[in-house]
């Protein structure tokens, strides 16, 4: 069974969002890291890049395949978790501690389109 944290928002492409004021921390869910297996590389955007809800902003690479990261919200990247460049396995170890980017949201209403923990649990049907 995959871990799902209460209080976070989830996208259909398995990213999670933690809201801190007008800033959204974005990572991938425990379910997603399990599906991908051993993560070996995180392709990060740069601080200052624009991201758009529903569009790709980077990628996670496992041994077997690359998976696009899809931004759940629109805005500007204000921080990237550069530590993941050297320790991509941190995503496997604790998917909810390993945030990938922080986005200053330009349209907080994007959050309304996301699922809460209960809806996400139903969505992954485990």
């Amino acid at each position, binding site marked *: 069974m995959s871990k799902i944290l209460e209080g976070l928002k989830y996208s259909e492409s398995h990213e999670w969002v933690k809201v801190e004021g007008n800033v959204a921390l974005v990572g991938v869910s425990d379910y997603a890291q399990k599906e991908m297996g051993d993560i070996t*590389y995180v392709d990060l955007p740069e601080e200052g890049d624009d991201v758009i809800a529903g569009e790709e902003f980077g990628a996670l690479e496992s*041994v077997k395949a690359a998976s696009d990261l899809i931004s759940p919200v629109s805005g500007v990247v204000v921080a990237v978790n550069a530590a993941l460049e050297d320790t991509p396995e941190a995503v496997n170890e604790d998917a909810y501690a390993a945030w990938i980017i922080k986005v200053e949201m330009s349209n907080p209403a994007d959050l309304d389109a996301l699922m809460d923990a209960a809806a996400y649990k139903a969505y992954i049907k485990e």
Partner: protein
Amino acid sequence: MEEQLKTTCLYNAHVALGAKMSPFAGFMMPIQYSGIVEEHLAVRQHVGMFDVSHMGEIFVKGPQAEAFINHIFTGDIRGYEPGKVLYGMMCYPDGGTVDDLLVYREYLADHFLLVVNAANVDKDFAWIQEQSKGYEVRLDNASDRIGQIAVQGPEAEKAVIEVLGYKEAADLAFYTFCDVEYKGERLILSRTGYTGEDGFELYTTNENTVEIWDRLLKAGVVPCGLGCRDTLRFEAGLPLYGDELSPEISPVMAGLSMFCKLEKDFIGRDALADQKAGNLARKLVGIEIEDKAIPRNGYPVLLEDGTQVGVVTTGYHSISLDKSICFALVNKEYSALDTPLYIGIRKKTFPGKVVKKRFYQTNYKK
């Protein structure tokens, strides 16, 4: 029309182990159990086992079996003694590859076994039947009746001897086999593999295969899926049909000329000789890039100015070497060692250079 997926005799064993299952070559196969990295390292450092029961086994028998196989096979089996195994390809007249395969010369006179790729069994059997007209041979596609386990790694010999009791294993050289029995049924004990390590492939009945798997598992041999089978064979510089060999990619283009005996006649010989003489557009190379980003099948190989000169066929961040490397099919003029080339990965371009295709130093028993 969706084709019904087949299962191997070990399907229930995989499900019981919690394997991640996925369709491959028309079969529902285990991709991984504990994880690709762990399984990969088990084979490199200790011993792992693979269910390769999906592979095809075709027996060729008869007074003209040797002459016939030599006609369809790029290798030369004349003079090969019973108990020897030879790797090579079957080609179309234009040099394109029908399949790569192993040819076993059996201990009975005029008996041979061809081991072919699972995805190609039907195509290969039809091709072989078609070419056999005029030869006195009998063909038997035994693929569904035979299970196969590959036991691979530096401790493979120990496992085969101690767990299964086959002391014969100690005397087998690489690419030879012997016939033993398991519960009164024939078992082909072959010192071959697809990992770059020492190891054995065991062919026997489906029923025996299930029992042997269980015994090896209980003795601590690590079950390994197709995920690490691909990372292992890739590091060892071994081609996968469909990626590095195909009707469009000849053995010469793939850098496998050493398995094509051009001094004898066989289907595709003239086209391959022409390619070997330099008349070919593309060649398979190894490329190493200076980054942890991973070149994948289909990604473009570029020059500094962005001109595309090739395409990646297989790529990984190598588990054993901690480098991002790939096989790529490139225009011949860019195939020399150390040629600087670039790979497009998503929106970025990464510099690299042409390196030898055998990325990992293999550890075969001579």
